[in-house]
């Protein structure tokens, strides 16, 4: 029986041996080519890096000593060999990410005149998805106003990388047309990478602030989108958004009220203290906790009584926010907090002891600082 089984097994072994040999040769070939590729790439990268290193001082000098963009462009064009223009673009982009004001204008001029903008616009229009995204990102760094219509066009692309790069670029460019385009996108139907879109807005706080306020006043967007705009108005610390945020503090939607309470604290609008004090008794624990925190951030000294009462809130989170807020309200707030060390409820006493204890330890870390 074993012998009869051994015969077909031997044939099978033959076939398998041949296939395994072929497979191994192929795989070893793949491995060898990958290693060779790595060697070639390493050398190429080292060469590129050396070229970039030689260009960097020239660009640094130009940015510090040549205020006229035309002269700067002429020098770059004549001092850097044409063969090194690819590395030159990378060095220019590195610098463009770091500088602002007149130096940025010099770089934008160089990008435009040396054809880098044209090349990236061409990629944005006709390139494959990744190339589009990369070029859009570059156009933002270059702050190319000429590219805005092309960037706006690709906001409807299905690929998220392309869209986010375009949004990022438009926010960096920051012309009214670009800012409007970003705002239309944010308030539009498409949802994408919400918190990263927020970063985009932060690039041009002043330009976006009135647009965000306008949308909040209108209030026609779905609650989720409104909540995002409320967060943004807090993140950009828009003091003028106070009145409209107060409106949302009275919203029937718990999430919107809580986000409004947080943004009011961040925005720095001290006129909202009274409304926030009233929110300390809101039925939502999130709203109560955010309100307490904001009252501390805004240094609302009138809120001491309300915050002291909030120390006996059934929710630990609210108690903690109220205790931390009281430490920010000067000696009076501190005194009110210290008195609650004698509170009857154990958790309240614990929270007060925790916050005061932590404050005490932090003080010890500061040389020469002590609380009377």
């Amino acid at each position, binding site marked *: 029986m*074993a012998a009869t089984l051994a015969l077909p097994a031997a044939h099978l072994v033959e076939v398998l041996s041949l296939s395994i040999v072929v497979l191994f040769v192929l795989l070893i070939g*793949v491995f060898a080519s990958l290693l060779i590729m*790595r060697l070639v790439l390493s050398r190429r990268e080292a060469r590129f890096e050396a070229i970039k290193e030689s260009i960097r001082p020239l660009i640094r000098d130009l940015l510090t000593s040549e205020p006229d963009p035309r002269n700067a462009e002429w020098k770059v064009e004549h001092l850097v060999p044409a063969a090194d223009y690819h590395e030159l673009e990378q060095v220019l982009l590195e610098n463009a990410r770091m500088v602002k004001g007149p130096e940025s204008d010099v770089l934008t001029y160089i990008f435009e005149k040396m054809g880098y903008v044209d090349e990236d616009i061409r990629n944005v229009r006709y390139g494959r998805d990744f190339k589009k995204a990369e070029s859009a990102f570059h156009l933002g760094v270059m702050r190319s106003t000429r590219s805005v219509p092309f960037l706006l066009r690709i906001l409807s692309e299905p690929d998220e990388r392309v869209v986010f790069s375009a949004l990022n670029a438009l926010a960096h460019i920051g012309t009214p047309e670009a800012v409007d385009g970003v705002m239309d996108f944010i308030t539009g139907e498409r949802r994408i990478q919400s*918190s990263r879109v927020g970063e985009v807005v932060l690039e041009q706080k002043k330009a976006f602030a009135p647009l965000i306020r306008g949308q909040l006043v209108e209030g026609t967007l779905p609650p989720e989108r409104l909540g995002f705009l409320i*967060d943004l108005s807090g993140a950009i610390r828009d003091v003028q958004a106070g009145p409209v945020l107060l409106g949302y503090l009275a919203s029937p939607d718990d999430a919107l009220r809580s986000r409004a309470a947080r943004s009011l604290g961040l925005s720095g609008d001290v006129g909202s203290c009274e409304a926030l004090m009233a929110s300390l008794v809101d039925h939502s624990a999130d709203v109560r906790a955010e309100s307490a925190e904001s009252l501390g951030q805004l240094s609302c000294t009138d809120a001491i009584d309300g915050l002291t009462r909030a120390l006996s809130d059934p929710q630990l989170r609210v108690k903690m926010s109220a205790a931390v807020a009281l430490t920010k309200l000067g000696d009076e707030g501190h005194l009110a907090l210290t008195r609650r060390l004698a509170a009857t409820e154990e958790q309240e006493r614990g929270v007060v002891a925790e916050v005061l*204890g*932590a404050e005490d*330890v932090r003080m*010890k870390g500061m040389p020469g600082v002590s609380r009377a």
Partner: protein
Amino acid sequence: MMKANDYWGVVIITINFLVFGYFVAINTTYLALFIAAFVSAGRYVARKRLVDLDELFRSPLTPKVSVIIPAYNEETGIVESVRAALMLKYPRFEVIAVNDGSTDSTIAELVRAYDLRQVTKVVERPVPCADIVGVYISTVYDNLIFIDKEHGGKADTLNAGINVSTGDIIVTVDADSLIEPDALLKIARPFLEKPEETVAVGGVVRVVNGCTVTAGNVTDVRLPHGFWANVQIVEYLRAFLGARMGWSTMNALLVVPGAFGAFDRDALLEVGGYRRDTVGEDMELIMRMHQYFRKTGRKYHIWFIPDPVCWTQVPVKIKQVASQRDRWQRGMIESLRAHETMLFNPVYGTVGMLSMPFYFFFEMLGPVVELLGYAVIVLAQAFGFLGLKFLWLFLSVAVLYGIIVSLLGIALEGVALQHFPRVRSLAKMTFYAVLENLGYRQVNTWWRTKAYVTYYTRKTKWGDMERQAYSGASPSPDKEPIA
């Protein structure tokens, strides 16, 4: 009627072919995973060029992160690990070091290094953990909290950290590990880009042995001396880097390493935190997340990204390596058995139909099959049931194919990720890829098979590993550097 000799002949030939099939299948699956990993790494590297980490760093919208460092008898490396965590580049984060009833001077080292003072703290317990003995904060760093708790195991310690944490994202880091300065920004990215579906992200864990560490940072990447550390580097590249990247592309990743993983806090609480009765708490948690979110129909994704690097010490003594592999294997058996209803269950999609069967048949039962294969091939040759050609064929798929798969791991590292800057390092790793399959793999198979015995006899406990001070770290007279 069949003779006894014939009967055993049939059995041995059949087993030989089954084991042969097993080797072909496991290595081919690894090969397929590597192809997926190459594609994924290429995309990731390209995408990196479109992200300005400074923008993430400046943004007040970036969610708060709590870095939890569980520690049990970690007096040698804990100060350096906490320092590395405190030096992370991230806008809002806290570091929570949790001592699990250490019997060495872990507490004393931390208290001295960071001027810790005991404070009162009210702690809610959304997830179960042993009693907290004391909470300390630092007079030097505002964002450092130290928890001293009764001994309860690693999962229990992580749960204690979760209970104290206030971040939106929980990052777990082993006490013998160091995270690269911008690793938090990178690991938080999926949470920012896909906030609604990202529930966990795994980062790459690399071997720090041999590297130079200065002020909590790896400043010079080199390969260590010695066999054990080097083969483990190759093993990490093959099994942890290549395979996990491959599974991640299918949202079928079953392990987010405990040494460096990030979790959405709400998702973590929703599934009940870490299970405390297993030594494979990291794998069990991810499997539970898959089970819970797939069952509830929630859109979710568990990612593995190759870039945010965490450096960890690997054991260099044979006993420690054996003990670690035993613990890992036990953890895997426990996790897979706890979720065996997911196996071949189409409700769980790629997890139930692909990664669970892979782990069940290749990783869990694999060592037993492999060991049986080695024994039976010897028998077959001894009794002349199969010729030398089959022996060659068997060794080809068992060893040579394994070497080639390990080489692909090195190629993935060398071409796409390039964390080892020296070409000489790649050449040395190539040498160890051969050694890994000629000896180490077989010994490892034996340890993993033995784990079945300890699985039925031993209780859950932390693995004891003798830690060594980092090379280049602040000098300490009583500690030997690794390199």
